[in-house]
């Protein structure tokens, strides 16, 4: 499984990329593989304020609907508008064009998230 080193991870299989002006969130390669072919994505409204661990989106494959949790508290600033027409992008590029939403974190240094190696360890346990 691909778990890039420059990202932070939630145990619930979301990734967070910290950037100068906020952060981007998606689901991990492991998550997309376990879900298999994604056929529907429900994204949050921009401007919504969320708590860490709150359900903010839903990703559905033929198999099941899976909740997506906010890895940090903050405000949703953008969503990936291409996903509703091409949800399979999540499977093809989970860390690239398949991102879900952008968030402005409340805290500059998020806590409770895992490094790439710690996240990988949770998968093999």
């Amino acid at each position: 499984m691909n778990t890039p080193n420059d990202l932070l991870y939630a145990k619930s299989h979301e990734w967070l990329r910290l950037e100068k002006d906020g952060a981007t969130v998606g689901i991990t390669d492991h998550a997309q593989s376990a879900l298999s072919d994604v056929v529907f994505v429900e994204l949050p409204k921009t401007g919504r304020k969320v708590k860490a661990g709150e359900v903010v989106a839903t990703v559905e494959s033929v198999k099941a609907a899976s909740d997506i949790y906010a890895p940090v508290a903050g405000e949703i600033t953008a969503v990936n508008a291409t996903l509703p027409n091409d949800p399979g992008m999540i499977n093809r590029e989970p860390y690239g064009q398949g991102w879900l939403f952008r968030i402005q974190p409340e805290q500059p240094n998020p806590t409770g998230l895992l490094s790439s190696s710690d996240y990988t360890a949770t998968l093999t346990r």
Partner: protein
Amino acid sequence: MIPFAGWNLPVEYTGLLAEHKATRQAAGLFDISHMGQIRVRGCGALAALESLLANDPAKLRDGEGHYSFLTNEKGGVLDDLYVYRLGSEDFLLVVNASRHKEDLQTLVQGGHPNVKFIGEPGQSAGLALQGPKSEGILLRLVPEGTLLPAKNHLIQTKIQGMTAWVARTGYTGEDGFEIFTDTESGPKIWNAILEAGKKDGLLPCGLGSRDSLRLESGFPLHGQDLSPEITPLEAGLGFFVDLSRPRPFPGRAQLEKAKKDGVSRSSIGLVGQPNQPPPRHGYPVFLDGKQIGVVTSGVPSPTLGHGIALALVTTPAPVCGQDLEFEVRGRRIPAKVSPRRFLPKK
């Protein structure tokens, strides 16, 4: 792999959508060894089954099979199953893995001392070869000149030298075969079919595509669309309940009454729209803002590109084409009533 009625079963091999598409367009191979195979033999076998099953096994000729139910005293479905007549006083029942042990109990209790019910979980192997290329693939593996069975019929033959019962039945809505054999031959036949079907685009298929394929064809799943609390008439499967024969079976009187007076619940098909969340098992269903029932099985249809579902609703049930809604995560999603077979019949 997921645990399923005491078995570990693969949800997918290469990917659910690829497996679904392969079965619709070429061929798919399913390991159905978890399905219970119960052989019923001995003097009085037919009479015993006649007194237990909702469809009349006396209608079957040698080498013929049909869909049937084990019912309780209320007419509810203890299990749905396939009954094949192998010969005089010799039948094969193929039952759900989750009901296998209970079915054996029901059969033995309701049977006759001379009749043997043989087949515990894990004692047999089963494969389903499904899809338009199935016949061509299977013909390469059976002795030359073998006449494969017609729909709903079965033959005993050899597949690469190994003895098996081959039935032209399945759970996908495609042409195809179900192969019943011993546990030693099962894996060998599996490998032989995989190899023979490779150039046709055959894929091994898991539980995931088995479920999406069966639902597109409107086939019920026991535990969701059928249960001891749901009768075949409510599920829209009255065709497989034979009330014209003399012999009683459990729940017959209740089913006769329901047929005469009408049922209070009825299974309907429901179609969603593209780019809307798909209906799933357990979602409430609304007509004019009032809840009328619940989704029993739902899936985003890989073939149609929108959600499809079976729902059990109160009668009078809305008719085909009528608008209704189902609820997903607190939101009402528009849907329409549709025939329960979502794909055209093949």
